[in-house]
């Protein structure tokens, strides 16, 4: 019954591709394309280079390399207009090319996602605004998967929490307006956290402004203004700040661990060829038997990690503990499939087998890649240091007295493990326990600065600004169950751990019955909060102390108690504002729509993680989605994919005292 066919993901992907190609088409002839680093990846998600070539793109340059040359008359810049620094770089490069003078260049700039006043001002100051064609490419959401829409703003985390720059909130609001314009208003907006509140306010304001712009007091309102959507249930906004803790833990799902060890960017991982073998060469070349190239150390191979790889979709959200088993099973199945050629008697059977061969080969390849990858990760997870780190994390998460872990942390510092790892542990402790004792903090500060350099004084001040690493304000504050110093200024993990059953010891990794499986026994608070909205009976039964097994199958959720109802008091202990807003429309129209659509249709819930989401949380949300399957669909939206390391990267000072000559 949806008025527009196709999922959001397909729709946004298509739209982005179309928009970009139309713009490129508008620039006549061959052109060189200059893309900023932070856009190159996302653009690759919706358009292939070969397609760009068809539209006249000759070569692609990275803005940061500043090496665009005069080989083509037309130069097209594709850059974020929100970042003043990038805008300046564009201006500089245009001026440089103009000075070269051999070629009369024709410049076009496509600002993503919108043309800003500041960018105009900068180009005007540079005196080139009259010489360039300016257009905007309104790409907000970039679909990573069918159920994951990301703004792919890499800096959103540091912008939001370190620099307190709410730019990405505004962009998020714009993006969500895009969804609303497609489906109608979210009937309800539920959220947690101060920035989430800001986002919701922006959404309300934008709706009002849209109403003001569109309708004109004529009789037929429904023809123009938007109505509450019939196929959307609600929007849930979770501010990352509400739950820094979960993101700081080492992720234990397969995809999460890949992200932790090799890193995943825009659905791709750069893996050493020594681990996964070189890129498969097309058959023709292989048969020529060229001298076997030994895979050189340091060569990287890009591995596509998305739903197009069937095996990977099976593995990605599983706890790493069982990945080995799955791989084994698949290997055995493949082998037996392969063996079936011997049993094939008739020619038809044989033909069937041959037809399936390419699929087998594809599967085989992916199996090899993932087995190698899993082994590499295993090597890492078996190491002494990894186990120590995990132990500290698990103890912190479980709420054990953190001071017992300090020796381990100190040892890790002395053993020179990467700074990120150490800082993650300290920040985790600070988040979970409401700060470190001032004496301990001072001690660690000194040790880390000695071990990693004095420039990290800046790192610490950044972490403090982000409220990731803080001295405990008063010794007893967090030990009292319900009251923090001011309720809502910090997330009280101690209280929530108990009352929302964040620690579930007996969770099975193989056959998970609670989201806690993703961290092998710890349920990420952020997702538990989502459950408080979507799966009330289940969470209630958990709290009442029933074992997980008893309450394993969540009874059909009643939508009778919407929003935070029933959990208001609990949720107060998490940081930031709590809200649940009903977007009202014309009652009559809603009812009409409802009768039209019927009540049993699948309703979509949008879950927006402001400030970033981890792969583990995505896995947990998918777990919920599966349980809610026929009644609800969950679409995960976020500003970017993050993990603990990226959070630390935002704070860590990159320069050091080495003489730079």
């Amino acid at each position: 019954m949806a008025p527009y066919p196709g999922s959001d993901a397909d729709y946004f992907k298509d739209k982005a591709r179309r928009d970009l190609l139309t713009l490129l088409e508008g620039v006549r002839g061959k052109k060189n394309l200059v893309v900023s680093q932070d856009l190159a990846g996302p653009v690759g998600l919706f358009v292939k280079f070969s397609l760009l070539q068809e539209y006249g793109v000759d070569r692609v340059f990275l803005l940061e390399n500043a090496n665009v040359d005069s080989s083509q008359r037309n130069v097209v810049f594709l850059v974020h207009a929100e970042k003043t620094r990038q805008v300046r770089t564009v201006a500089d490069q245009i001026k440089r090319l103009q000075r070269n003078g051999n070629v009369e260049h024709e410049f076009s700039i496509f600002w993503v996602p919108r043309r800003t006043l500041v960018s105009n001002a900068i180009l005007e100051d540079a005196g080139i605004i009259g010489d360039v064609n300016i257009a905007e490419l309104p790409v907000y959401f970039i679909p990573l998967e069918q159920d994951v829409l990301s703004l792919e703003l890499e800096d959103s985390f540091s912008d939001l929490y370190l620099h307190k720059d709410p730019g990405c909130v505004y962009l998020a609001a714009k993006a969500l307006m895009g969804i609303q314009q497609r489906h109608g208003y979210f009937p309800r907006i539920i959220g947690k956290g101060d920035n989430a509140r800001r986002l919701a306010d922006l959404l309300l304001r934008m709706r009002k402004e849209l109403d003001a712009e569109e309708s004109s007091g004529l009789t037929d309102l429904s023809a123009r203004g938007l109505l509450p959507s019939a196929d959307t249930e609600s929007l849930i906004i979770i501010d990352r700040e509400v739950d820094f803790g979960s993101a700081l833990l080492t992720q234990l799902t397969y995809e999460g661990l890949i992200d932790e060890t090799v890193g995943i960017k825009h659905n791709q991982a750069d893996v050493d060829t020594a681990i996964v073998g070189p890129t498969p060469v097309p058959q023709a070349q292989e048969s020529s038997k060229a001298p076997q190239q030994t895979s050189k150390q340091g060569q990287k191979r890009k591995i596509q990690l998305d739903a197009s790889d069937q095996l990977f979709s099976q593995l990605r959200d599983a706890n790493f503990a069982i990945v080995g088993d799955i791989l084994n099973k698949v290997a055995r199945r493949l082998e037996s499939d392969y063996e079936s050629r011997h049993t094939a008697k008739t020619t038809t059977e044989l033909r069937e087998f041959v037809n399936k061969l390419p699929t087998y080969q594809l599967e085989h390849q992916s199996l090899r890649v993932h087995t190698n990858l899993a082994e590499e990760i295993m090597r890492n997870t078996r190491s002494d240091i990894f186990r120590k780190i995990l132990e500290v994390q698990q103890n912190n998460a479980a709420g054990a007295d953190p001071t017992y872990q300090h020796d381990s942390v100190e040892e890790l510092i002395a053993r020179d493990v990467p700074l990120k790892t150490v800082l993650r542990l300290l920040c985790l402790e600070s988040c979970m326990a409401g700060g470190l004792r001032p004496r301990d903090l001072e001690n660690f500060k000194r040790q880390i600065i000695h071990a990693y350099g004095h420039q990290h004084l800046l790192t610490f001040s950044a972490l403090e600004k982000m409220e990731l690493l803080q001295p405990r304000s008063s010794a007893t504050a967090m030990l009292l169950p319900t009251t923090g110093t001011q309720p809502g200024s910090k997330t009280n993990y101690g209280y929530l751990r108990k009352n929302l059953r964040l620690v579930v010891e007996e969770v099975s990794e193989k056959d998970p019955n609670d989201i806690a499986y993703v961290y092998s026994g710890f349920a990420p608070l952020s997702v538990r909060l989502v459950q408080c909205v979507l799966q009330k009976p289940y969470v209630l039964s958990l709290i009442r102390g029933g074992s997980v097994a008893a309450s394993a199958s969540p009874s059909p959720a009643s939508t009778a108690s919407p929003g935070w109802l029933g959990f208001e008091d609990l949720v107060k202990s998490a940081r930031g504002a709590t809200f649940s807003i009903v977007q009202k429309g014309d009652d009559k129209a809603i009812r009409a729509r409802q009768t039209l659509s019927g009540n049993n249709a699948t309703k979509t819930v949008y879950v927006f993680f402001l400030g970033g989401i981890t792969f583990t949380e995505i896995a947990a949300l998918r777990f919920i989605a599966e349980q809610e399957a026929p009644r609800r669909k969950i679409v995960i939206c976020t500003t970017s994919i993050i993990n603990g390391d990226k959070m630390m990267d935002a704070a860590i000072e990159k320069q050091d005292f080495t003489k730079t000559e």
Partner: protein
Amino acid sequence: MAPSNPLANWERLGDSFYRKVPIYDAIFDEDVELENYIVAGAPYGGALALHRDDTKPYRFRDAQTAKSSIGIYSSSGKLINRLNWEHGTIRGLGWSDKEELLVITEDGTVRRYFGLYGDFTSFSLGNGAEEYGVRACRFWTSGFVALLSNNQLVAVSNYDEPRPKLLAHCPEGEVSSWSLIPPAFTLSRSVEVLLAVDKTVYLVDPTEAEDKVLQNGPFKHASVSPTGRFVALITAEGKVWVVSSDFQSKYSEYDPESRVTPRTVDWCGDDAVVIAWEDEVHLIGPNGVAARYYYDGIVHVVPEFDGVRLITHDTCEFLHKVTDVTEAIFRLGSTSPASVLLDSIDLLEKKSPKADENIQRIRSSLPEAVDICVRAAGHEFDAYWQKRLLKAASFGKSVLDLYNSDDFVEMTEKLRVLKAVRDYQIGLPISYDQYMRLTPEKLIERLVNRHEYLLAIKISEYLQIPADRIYVHWASQKVKVSTVDDEAVCKLIVQRLDGKPGISFELIAQAAYDEGRAHLATQLLNHEPRAGKQVPLLLNMEEDEIALDKAIESGDNDLVNYVLLRLKSKLPLASFFRMINTRPMASALVETTARGDDTELLKDLYYQDDRPIDGSNVLLSEALSQTELPSKTEKLHLASRLLVDSKDATVVLQQKLLSEASQLLKVQEALDKDIADRSEFVGLSLNETIYRLIRSGYGKRAQKLQSEFKMPDKTYWWLRLRALVAKRDWGELEEIGRNKKSPIGWEPFYNEILGAGNTKLASFFVPKCTNLPVEDKVEMWVKCGMIVKAGEEAFRAKDFNTLELLRTRASGPAVADIDRMINQLRPRK
């Protein structure tokens, strides 16, 4: 009044018919000598701009009337506005499809008049237009091309952000005529120009000028058909050629048998060419057939996409191809079902039973007949025939059981609108097809431009189109012309617009501000619901503080940044800081931008805000980016000095660590000097320094550093262990192993040394790990390859099972040893 003959003015041209519909008569006043004027008509039946042709001789007049001006008339001859012109020679006069008048002067200045009442923006063509001068201009719906006297072509394809662009360089020679193909119809998606030079024609686009290699020039006229598919040329011999726009094929040739070159060549739709002399018009159809019209006075041709408007002193006529539906009905002797249906109306009125007979006869094709009648009604200009056709449709409809009347109803709506705007008082002789293409919204815009507010609102209500723009335009006009005081105007406007959502008060306020009524503008702005919209105007009005607040309210960081940028360059620093101080979002954004490019501002900000740590951090990061050591230390010194006075514990620590940093740098500098080693110490962390010292064998110095910087023993031991292992200094490690106690225990020693591959030395540390459980120790021994030792360990713990296990892993003489131990342990029964 007797109905006009529907066949009046039909003219057969090959297979199809053309007709000339008179729309208005008695157009121009007697004193307008049309032959002396350049006439440019806006598309879609829009306004006409008349300008006295300078090349024509003047009759002597008094100074007042001789003053140069541009008259804007409606097609019915009503003077809408007169623009005084004293800006030089006009080289181009044309319209955009938004009915904006464009006037291009010889020196390359372009004036764009919007709204017909003299508001304009202007820009310059540049690209040498000033030196060489503009010769002529050609227009299309959203842009124009100017031909300079040096044969350069300058194209402007967007009036909102005009960006004059040079097209490819053209060949020398006399341009005898030229024309353009609008971007929508070219392959290159950019405007292309046909330039008749000497004997041939060049096709010029932004990148190249292509010679089409023709022989029959010089061509005196070139004209491109509305869809850009055909070109009409007048050859040197005065013949009319119609060729495809790629010059590959010639479709027809026509000889007008006239020695005088026609004044204009235009297209009438896509199938016929209209050539006009002073008082004669030829309409040339496919295959060179032609119809001729003669006039008493001069005739001006205004091309439309579906026909031409012919303007003479007394009449305004519309010459166009008769549509298929109209032809099917009215053609002499037509027996089409629709024609029969129309006839039955007459019979019906005469109460003749034949009406029904007719209907029955065409029964099978009745729905189609009804459709055709409805559509033909649209193309009719005469209300009598419109009614007649609709009546026929209605009659046919009533006979049908099932018929979707939407088209019929819509047509009646459209016809009502068309009738209203075609009235001579309004003077928009728009055809049905033009109306469809222009869209109702744009039509209303045109009415608004003519200040026909009432009609505009009536139409928009009738068609259910947002009327907010009309109100805003009205209000802006009110603001401009009213002379009463601000309060009264504001009250009046707010009252009138009350309850009408979507009103952009910002635009009205802008109009007020442009009129110099700042107070009124502020008052009006208060009614604007969209915060963001108010900001630019507020900035212009120097209402800085309100602008900043509104920008923050809108949540748009770009807007806030923009306001801040403007304010920073405008205000003294102190008041700038004061302004952002109380607004956290603003100060955060200032900090972010300043961090990138203006650290001095940042320092000032922190100083004013009394944030010593932040201030010293700026200096610290400056220290990091210095290249020379002395300047690094100096910055560090400055950074630490900022913190000296404070008593706060964190500040004190910060200060201590900062001075420690410079101390470390000093030490490292000395090390670099003293130790003639390739290792560079400067810039390393303390731990790395010590590690490297030990690894290079400077244990003493390392120890000195440890005490100097009060490094905990544990850390130091770890560093020493790792450094010595890296150095493979087994002797030293063994020496350390002779100590009684280690602050980090002995297990790390075992692990690290084993990891480095020295099992022998590793085994040395196993017995020292006294506090480990037996199983671990057994495992440790085994890892060193010492099964026997492991066995002894197990033996001491009387662990029988482990021994059994060990035996399976043992080989050589070790087997015997393990066996012996097993035997000893075996319970003596």
